[in-house]
């Protein structure tokens, strides 16, 4: 399978995503933000970082880049798109995902390991995650507090679009486990069509036991599994 890893001028997890995907034996190539096509990619990863310095609002400038127009088309055709951290912010800004990510409740940047509960296992990003398996994945963001208005949140729940929630080691979704103030402890969501997802934690940084956790692999593996099934069908 072939992943396109987008590169904005100040992406800084582009290498991490490439590394994580290649570790799993897949192909991965960078696609520059000025590119107007994604080539023959089977899936797109929008990596973390600061895209254009994240001035004004995170992801606000990146969403207008030429490559994002290509991503929009790719997503409209059902292609798998995963936004990680800044990638999640860009997807929200671009309207490919609902809601917005605002300043952490603490007003501080937070870098630490968190636990994640997978709230829906029937998405292309979660299907390879064993039920009841609490994921341990790091976060690193200053603006990761998920916000959406009530009707949007209700719709997210109705359509089972909430994919991951911050939880404690035992899988309980608690206030203390919420690192940034996200509504409903939301760490990641997908769109209604389920082919576009974003999350604040970094699966790319949790792809090797050497770095403390390999739980992040499950997310990339889910995408590969879904893609292989679709192709077989």
């Amino acid at each position: 399978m072939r992943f396109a890893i987008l590169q904005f001028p100040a992406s800084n997890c582009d290498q991490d995503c490439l590394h994580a995907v290649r570790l799993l034996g897949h192909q991965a190539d960078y696609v520059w933000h000025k590119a107007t096509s994604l080539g023959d990619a089977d899936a797109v990863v929008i990596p973390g970082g600061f895209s254009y310095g994240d001035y004004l609002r995170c992801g606000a400038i990146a969403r207008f880049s030429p490559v994002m127009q290509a991503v929009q088309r790719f997503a409209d055709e059902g292609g798998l798109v995963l936004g990680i951290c800044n990638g999640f912010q860009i997807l929200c800004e671009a309207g490919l995902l609902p809601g917005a990510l605002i300043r952490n409740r603490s007003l501080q940047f937070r870098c630490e390991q968190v636990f994640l509960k997978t709230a829906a296992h029937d998405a292309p990003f979660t299907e390879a995650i064993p039920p009841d398996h609490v994921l341990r994945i790091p976060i690193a963001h200053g603006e990761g507090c998920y916000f959406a208005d009530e009707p949007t949140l209700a719709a997210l729940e109705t359509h089972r679009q909430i994919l991951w929630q911050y939880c404690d080691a035992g899988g309980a979704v608690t206030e203390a486990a919420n690192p940034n103030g996200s509504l409903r402890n939301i760490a990641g969501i997908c769109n209604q069509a389920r082919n576009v997802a974003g999350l604040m934690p970094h699966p790319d940084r949790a792809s090797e036991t050497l770095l403390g956790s390999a739980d992040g692999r499950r997310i990339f593996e889910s995408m590969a599994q879904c893609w292989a099934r679709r192709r077989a069908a």
Partner: protein
Amino acid sequence: MSEPAITPALVAQHGLTPEEYDRLQAILGRPPSYTELGIFSVMWSEHCSYKNTRPLLRTFPTRGRSVLVGAGEENAGILDIGDGLAIAFKIESHNHPSAVEPFQGAATGVGGIIRDIFTMGARPVCAMDSLRFGPITGSSADEARLANNRRLFAGVVSGVAHYGNCFGIPTLAGEVGFDPSYEGNPLVNVFCLGVLRHEQIARGAAQGLGNPVFYVGPATGRDGLAGAAFASQDLTEASAQHQRGAVQVGDPFMEKLVCEACLELLATGAVAGMQDMGAAGLTCSTCETAARAGTGIEIELSKVPQRAPHMTPYEIMLSESQERMLVIVHQGREEEVKRIFDKWDLPWAEIGVVTGTGRMVVKHQGRVVADIPAKPIATESPVYEREAREPGYLAGVRAFTLAGLPDTTDPTAALLHLLAWPTIASKNWVYRQYDHMVRDGSVVCPGSDAAVIRLKADALPPRPAAGTETGGAPPTVEKFLALTVDCNGTYVYLDPYEGSKIAVTEAARNLACSGATPVGVTDNLNFGNPHHPELFWQLRESVRGLAEACRAFQTPVTGGNCSLYNQSPAGAIDPTPTIAMVGVIARPEHITTQWFKDPGDVILLLGPAVDPADPLGGLGGSAYLQVLHGQKTGRPPRCELDQGRTLHEALRSLIYGGAVKSAHDCSDGGLAVALAECCISHQVARETPRLIGAAIELGADGSGTVAAPNPPRLDALLFGETQHRVLITTTALDAPKVRAQAKILGVTATELGVVGGDQLRLRAQGQEWRWSVVELHDRWWHALARAMA
């Protein structure tokens, strides 16, 4: 444009002495223009010329088998780490700017040191920060002062975070200390390390007659006018006020673009020389590149992009606007340069040319405003042997004995107290604000004795041939480096020579605990005004200790920074020679962390429990004496370098043997604090520490009695800071073997107890104390957050 006349007063204002002015005239053969005066004043400031420290710095060991670029040759030293790979690293201070504007001061400090590293052709892969502030906790009577110290602390930390996080460099380790001597003059030292292949080393030299000189980066403004000179004076209200008008603002986004573009450009081979515009901006970079190459350089200031209208030549030359680079390009390859700068949407301009005259010629709209021989100004700056006199306070320090000091009666409370003391408490409030994991290399994150980073192929700069996007190279060997930064300023204050040896030894010990062999050092000498004989004595003695210790551990000094004039009107700071040390870990299996691993593991102390030859039993200058008795005095613990070397080598052997499950050195707070940290420092995830207790028996071990201090004092045993001690754990099965081996290696290994339970239990001299690990953790982990709430 009328320029001020050169008067003795103006010369003095520029920090030049009458003798220096005479020398300047001799070099020029005439009186200087106003712009030239400005150029000389910054080039001959302490910050740029090291005029007060050069004779001392010469005593450092700077050579070694692995040194590829030595101290002082270029922007940063470079060490070979095998397999054709090399590392460039350096530390730099931004103390005075941070005192004036903590957020931007710290942020631009990070930016500056990152530039020093990629200027060498290396890709910056990690950073560390060493910080000092006035106290943030204490009596409410001092609330206004405490609040100001907290403001500085919070501002500096968020400045480091802002810049490092956005740039995308993991800030992987550091240290933070609090002491009244830093009030009003905080220390902000930042370290950066980069990686490159041997053949990728770039030089900051203006080579090749006729080669064009490019300026890349944002437009020049009036920021940081004469910042180098500012760093070379005492911090007074007047000097700070003056500097306020010209605070530098950092733009990490721009820096990221400049870094990527420069590395990509270097890969094309089109670059003849490259130099960042750091302190003294355009002045320093043009002058030094010409001096290094033995060439001349001519620039036209009207071509320099300018942010503010009507900037004078003086201002343009002295501005310290951030994120700018000077690039000298092989003639005929200008198009490649323009293509890459444009790809990264970077502002650039061609501003001059390399000449063969040996002179630095600066023109403004065609008119010559400065014409100076480059080499003399860069290399013939004055050098001073300052007067040194032993400080008077040392007599009192040396006279201190424990005679009048009652032994501890409540170790339970004392330990809790020490763990919550901001200097000892967990620094998670700091490092959780830093992205310390970006770029998939952080194997040991902040929180253990040394951080460990893995270098993989994509940590390297792009290859010459590939030239295109990054990450193209096939994976080469993985490398593991350990990093630490250390200095106990109290020890150095109480005994500059001994305290400085301790700083180096502690760094080496921290590396050994992680399984690493040290390869090199970069130091940041933070001292007071060198014109003051007692302060200069501190500096001289300190350098003597540092040099000796670096020799002992075979860690050449590859570069560093001198920050003198660290004093507020209240006096000088405690002398603080910050030592950043880098080590190599041969195999990933050797990577060792400080926390206890499994119940049943045996705890061994390597080294003496208390130094029998120290009449203060390690309590001189200790945290215990400061926190529990309010005294900052006494001779610091002795530091026998041989003993340290033996310990570190033994520890590494034991680690290589595979028997060591954890290793933690005893430093601030002594044995009791070290034991507690082993129980509570393993963090699993948010709100989820992995706590584990231990049962310890001091002094009743059958095989090797813990030497009792003489007279036997409990406080010395528990909280004394005797040097050369490390706590390790092994399985019960391995313990006898490890003890036997340690003996052969020349180190005493005493069995102290076993890991397990939910309490730290400590027995000594017939008494027992217990702490719940939950409580220990709570005090230690949340102390800074509580102080800052």
